[in-house]
């Protein structure tokens, strides 16, 4: 065992690796290694996918080591002549369930003993075309006392499509199953299809509309590592500021939305007004309130200048003053505490077992923050400490947003006090020659959590495979678990407290 660990392939975040350097194990060796690694608390699987390669499928698993700041790459190969069946690792490591389901859906690999081998998103190029989105195999209970409630995929509010199936005993939810895939657009295939860099980066901005900066940053870093482009420290800092502004804006918008859902009128309106201040600033910087057009590979079209710096300080000062005042009032209001406290609790063990990332992990005492464990962009130069809360209920998720906003503001202030923006950063690169036969991985921490983009190139430097993982892939499971034994009327605030992405999952 130790012998295998010694020649294991360890890479850093945002790096491209020669495919030949990734060791190819047999499946039993791969299973042993992966299980061995993933039972350790500091490791979690950030991506595990299969891609067509020569006459079979190449499986690559990326396991992040949070203490060492490394990513461990493992792979195995399944020739098309072999039976399409593998032993599932999910019974031992629950967090792998979603990756195995994805591989099963895309390539028809039957994972033996997988407890929940169901379709993920019904992609256009799925293996079993006969399986339609309406035939999703829901979990059923045959009972006269219990009833099912189905919500969606069309909802009363202006939100994305998703179907929620509750099995209830009166008002109590015994089980919730979430079926997604209604919004599948085929982003991964589109990124390969579009050959121009600009087309690709614009696509990446639209993977999840509320995480435009997070996803485009992951894409840009991936391309830069594949094209071996070094960017200046100043540009790195600018990107991190953009990411933090997105975090602040979405968090404060979510606080407003949570107030709406509990009918706290004052919070609902004023927090929404505060969000506008931040997104308007983003617009004045890059021309788009959601931060589209901000991140480009190799540079930035609209650099951050000292003028921007001055205005950002003004905006933040005004925002912080009002935010702190209203947050103080809202979070201390007994009716708000009464509504949020102690519902939808998911404990640390459950959160760890399903492999939740980002906010969903940090609200339940699990320290998962790519910004500190695998620093990228401006977080290398200016480290940031994650906010961890112990309890894991709706109030924790509500409170985590407030605390993260405060920390982000403090972090941006620290940068603005120390960094210099006298000379504008470099312009974006239009053409990039990618390294041949390489595997690149890029992790960023969007406001929702860890975003992972992976790409493979062939021997001529063409991109042949692209894999996106939005944090929602793991975190929808946390919502399902939150609802256990909860009243069905508490579903909306639980759903809003996670605010997961439908399109980020559906791709």
């Amino acid at each position, binding site marked *: 065992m130790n012998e295998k660990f010694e020649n294991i392939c360890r890479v850093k975040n945002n790096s491209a690796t020669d495919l030949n350097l990734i060791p190819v194990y047999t499946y039993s060796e791969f299973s042993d290694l992966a299980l061995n690694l993933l039972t350790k608390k500091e490791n979690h699987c950030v991506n595990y996918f299969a891609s067509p390669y020569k006459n079979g499928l190449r499986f690559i698993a990326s396991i992040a080591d949070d203490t060492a700041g490394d990513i461990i790459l493992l792979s195995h190969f399944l020739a098309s002549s072999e039976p399409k069946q593998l032993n599932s690792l999910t019974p031992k490591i629950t967090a792998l369930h979603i990756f195995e389901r994805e591989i099963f859906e895309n390539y028809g690999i039957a994972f033996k003993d997988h407890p929940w081998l169901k379709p993920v998103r019904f992609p256009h190029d799925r293996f079993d075309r006969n399986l339609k989105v309406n035939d999703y195999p829901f979990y059923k209970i045959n009972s006269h006392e219990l009833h099912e409630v189905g919500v969606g995929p069309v909802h009363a509010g202006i939100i994305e499509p998703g179907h929620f199936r509750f099995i209830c005993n009166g008002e109590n939810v015994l089980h919730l199953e979430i079926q997604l895939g209604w919004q599948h657009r085929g982003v991964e295939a589109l990124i390969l299809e579009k050959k121009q860099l600009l087309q690709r980066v614009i696509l990446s901005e639209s993977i999840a509309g509320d995480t435009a900066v997070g996803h485009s940053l992951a894409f840009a870093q991936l391309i830069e590592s594949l094209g071996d482009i070094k960017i200046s420290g100043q540009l790195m800092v600018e990107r991190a500021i953009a990411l933090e502004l997105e975090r602040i804006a979405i968090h404060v918008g979510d606080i407003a939305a949570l107030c709406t859902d509990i009918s706290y009128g004052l919070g609902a309106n004023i927090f929404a007004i505060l969000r506008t201040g931040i997104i308007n600033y983003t617009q004045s910087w890059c021309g788009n309130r959601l931060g589209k057009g901000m991140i480009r590979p190799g540079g930035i079209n609209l650099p951050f200048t000292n003028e921007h710096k001055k205005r950002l300080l003004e905006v933040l000062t005004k925002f912080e003053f009002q935010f702190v005042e209203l947050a103080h009032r809202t979070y201390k209001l007994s*009716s708000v505490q009464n*509504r949020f406290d102690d*519902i939808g609790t998911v404990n640390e063990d459950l959160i760890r077992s399903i492999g939740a990332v980002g906010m969903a992990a940090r609200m339940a005492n699990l320290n998962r923050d790519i910004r500190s464990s695998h620093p990228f962009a401006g977080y290398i130069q200016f480290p940031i400490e994650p906010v961890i809360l112990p309890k894991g209920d709706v109030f924790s998720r509500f409170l985590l947003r407030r605390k993260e906003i405060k920390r982000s503001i403090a972090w941006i202030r620290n940068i603005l006090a120390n960094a210099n923006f006298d000379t504008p950063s470099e312009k974006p690169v239009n053409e990039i020659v990618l390294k041949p036969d390489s595997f690149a991985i890029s992790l960023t921490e969007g406001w929702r959590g860890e975003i992972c983009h992976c790409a493979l190139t062939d021997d001529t430097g063409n991109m042949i495979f692209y894999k996106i993982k939005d944090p929602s892939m793991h975190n929808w499971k946390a919502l399902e678990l939150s609802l256990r034994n909860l009243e069905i009327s508490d579903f909306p605030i639980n759903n809003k407290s996670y605010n997961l992405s439908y399109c980020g999952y559906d791709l």
Partner: protein
Amino acid sequence: MGVGLVLILITSLIFPGIVSVVKAKVAARKGPRVMQHFYDIIKLMKKGNVYSRTTGFLFQLAPIIYFSTLLTAVFFIPVGNYKALFSFEGDFVMFAYLMASGRFIMIIAAMDTGSGFEGMGANREAFYSLLAEPVFFIIMGSIALHTGHNSFYDIFSSLYVESALTYFVSALSIYLIFWLSMIENSRLPVDDPNTHLELTMVHEVMVLDHSGFELGLIQLAGGLKFAIFGSLIFNLVLPIQNNYFVQLAFFPIVQIIYAVLVAFVESFRARNKMMRNAQWIITLSALSIVVFLTILIIHEKVGMLP
């Protein structure tokens, strides 16, 4: 005689508008016009109806019955010295059950749609009104015991406020009727009239399938409910000895204060957990028993208690 009725009807049209305007102002929004609610109803009345295929005639009949029961209930409410259209011994029992039968028919209509959401809402509405009913009867019964009369007009016209204990009874009754009106009108903290989330709705989900003229009637009925409770509060606030003109002047003032209070409650607090609603309503019943006991103390009938 008709003056009271006209006052209540006018209030019913304006009241929801005042609430939404105040809520908007508190939240730094511009908000709709005061009469917007009324215009919306007119717009709805002009529209055609859409019926689901699973519903029967009961579903179409329900809003009309609902509205007419409430309108009939209005005839029982005196406004100060202005007598109600109908007044007889025990009319407040008739009044309470008119309101209840309106609710009953709406619950039946909601079940008629066969929708999972509507059944859930109907179930909740039935449960909460069941719990809220004692509050009204204990208060009215206590005051009837106090005055020795049992029709609305007689009760209110002989309700003297002379000692500290009767002040306490009036104040507590007004407080309870205020919260009772919030439950009856499906407002905070039990329900939220503005939510779009079916799973958390109580009353709103029951009327999801209604449209056009009938939805207009339901909304008119909502205004009527507020006006009914506003008049009850007015009767408790203002002694009937004042002359007609003072009462006429005070009626709108009391209604506006009531509307502003409703708006403030909806702006400055969050709603209850669904689970805690029952507990909260039972607390109101417990408080109404305090009214009853105080009346017993005033009349020195405490010895009657076991």
